[in-house]
């Protein structure tokens, strides 16, 4: 459905179900250059279980209008505004990759709005290589190819999708190709610059789940461990033979993990 957030037309996916007053809320935040469609399976699942789903398209992503937000903190503030517009008070917040930093920042700075946190394919800090950043700055297609390549585990480069008939590498590159000029660079730079995160971990007291791919090259699990250890009430689920694109490589495993938060 569409909402007005900061005078901009904003899209949130609801898992094909209308929100019901009084129901709990689950918020999903996508990664770099992506949109709400990476959460379609999970959104539909938790909507059927009676949660109000807010799977956002961040400004200038997917179907949402507005200006790109250059910082993770700014995106987190915007998520709170989107929740206000959707009339959802407290929420479980789930994020993937860049979205995991946004989810973390929402939880750290607006703890009274967050009942549980899930970070999928995450690390902190989340540095970005110069080659990728340079190509993203020039809006070279190569940047999207790099993201696609490094997001998938070696085995996923030969397929084996849990969703029948979907070629994962083909689907992700098409999704990234839909992002407008400057979007990838904006998002990558926001990740690169988010260096204050670990100092905010002490604010995260709610149940927290890290869902990590064993073969993640973008946010290696050794960096995620630092983050996990910094959060008092955290658990980690490690998915074997899975890369950074957990949302497409292992949607069933991710769902099994997320269910434990509800």
């Amino acid at each position, binding site marked *: 459905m569409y909402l007005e957030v900061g005078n901009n037309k904003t899209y949130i*996916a609801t898992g*094909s179900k209308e929100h019901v007053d009084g129901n709990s809320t689950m918020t999903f935040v996508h990664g770099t250059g992506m*949109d709400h*469609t990476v959460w*379609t*399976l*999970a959104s*539909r*699942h938790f909507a*059927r279980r009676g949660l109000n789903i807010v799977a956002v398209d961040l400004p200038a992503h997917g179907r949402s209008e507005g200006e790109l937000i250059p910082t993770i903190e700014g995106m987190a503030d915007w998520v709170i505004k989107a929740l206000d517009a959707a009339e959802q008070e407290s929420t479980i917040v789930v994020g993937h990759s860049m979205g995991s930093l946004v989810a973390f920042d929402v939880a750290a700075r607006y703890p009274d709005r967050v009942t549980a946190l899930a970070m999928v394919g995450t690390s902190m800090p989340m540095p970005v290589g110069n*080659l990728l950043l340079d190509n993203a700055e020039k809006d*070279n297609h*190569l940047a999207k*190819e*790099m993201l*696609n*390549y490094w997001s998938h585990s070696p*085995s996923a*480069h*030969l*397929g*084996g*999708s*849990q*969703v*029948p*008939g*979907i*070629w994962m*590498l*083909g*689907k992700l590159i*098409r*999704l990234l*190709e*839909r992002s407008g000029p400057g979007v990838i660079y904006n998002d990558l730079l926001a990740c690169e610059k988010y260096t204050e995160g670990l100092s905010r971990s002490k604010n995260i007291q709610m149940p927290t789940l890290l869902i990590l791919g064993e073969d993640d090259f973008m946010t290696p699990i050794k960096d995620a461990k630092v983050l996990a250890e910094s959060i008092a009430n955290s658990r980690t689920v490690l998915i074997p*033979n899975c890369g950074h694109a957990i949302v497409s490589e292992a*949607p*069933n495993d991710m*769902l099994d993990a997320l269910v434990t938060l509800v």
Partner: protein
Amino acid sequence: MAKVKTFDFDTLANHAGQRPDSETGARAVPIYQTASYVFKDSDAGAAIFNIERGGHVYSRISNPTNAVLEERISALEGGVGAIATASGQAAVFMAIATLMDSGGHIVSSQSLYGGTHNLMEYTFPRFGITTTFVDSNDMDAFRAAIKPETRLIFGETVGNPRAEVFDIPVVSKIAHEHKIPLMIDSTFTTPYLMKPFDFGADIVVHSATKFLSGHGTVMGGLIVDGGIFDWESSNKFPQMTEKYEGFHNLSFTEEFGPAAYISRVRNEGARDFGACISPHTSFLILNGIETLSIRMDKHISNTKEVVQYLDKNDMVEWVSHPDLEDHPNHELAKSLLPRGSTAVFSFGIKGGRKVGQTFIDRLELFSNLANVGDAKSLVIHPASTTHQRMTVEALEAAGISEGLIRLSVGIESVNDLIEDLEKGFKAAAQIS
């Protein structure tokens, strides 16, 4: 500029879509000969039914063996996903029916497989879907044929039987200017010779019965979604963009983004039309695809020699193959099909139908049958067989004369093939 190294064609042709079976370690793709799948529990069953989890419910909708084939063809074509069907004809029907409502209109090349022509000319009109057939070399004709209700342009990479090369870059531009997709039947070329998505096609269909399986043993079809066409800005496809009551008001573009079309094909077409492929058939097609590049190279090299032989033969009136400089699409073929254009082409024998029949009946290695793309060489007289339901005018428009003979050159010894043709011409000469 740096490049991202992805797997090459031959590696994908042998591996894409499959991870070795985790239970048994089976290296070959297992044949999951089952109609249904036991759910882990009731909620997991409900979740798969409601597209919350990946998985299989019923083999009409999806099957693990079929899914490997679907991923493999997607990988080879550069698409987002695919669905395998009971035949190439089922693929063409399902791919088109997914996009069309009663009142819809298609603009199609007139150089078509006879079955596709029949579907568009006679069957679809019974459901209110009409087609305008145009010369595939006449770009103005494509433009002129487009109406407000046009929902699709259709063509074959290389036409049947005169081997017209479809100008995908130009026609896709025309289609997209009118916010309609271009669907390409890529049966004759396979992704080894050409990837239509690279040139602007939006949807690719195959008869996997032909070169993909390659041995004349199965019936199968494939639909591949390029994931590029913008259904929403087109504003012509409520099937893709509006809520679908048949699936609890699911909007395919909203929920599946680049995979909207193939998701609709699976969740409507596979479910309602029912033309599912057998997993055993998928297994055989997968085996065929593993050797696709090797076979296609041999098909093409043999064809080059056969074409040269025919072109110099006094009993041959004409040869229609893009390798020849007098073919209208010679230059286009060099641009779009640098590895070779096709092993299926036609020639005209002097003396007409009776001489042609004598020629065909004398052949031993070339089998007289209604198929193409077999490892074995094939021959047929289209005017009396594959295209016999077409009117005289339609045959003429498609360039199918009484003396036209279609060859599908196989991978046998080319010397033996030419010797076989030589025997046919000698027999034909005795009655002409």
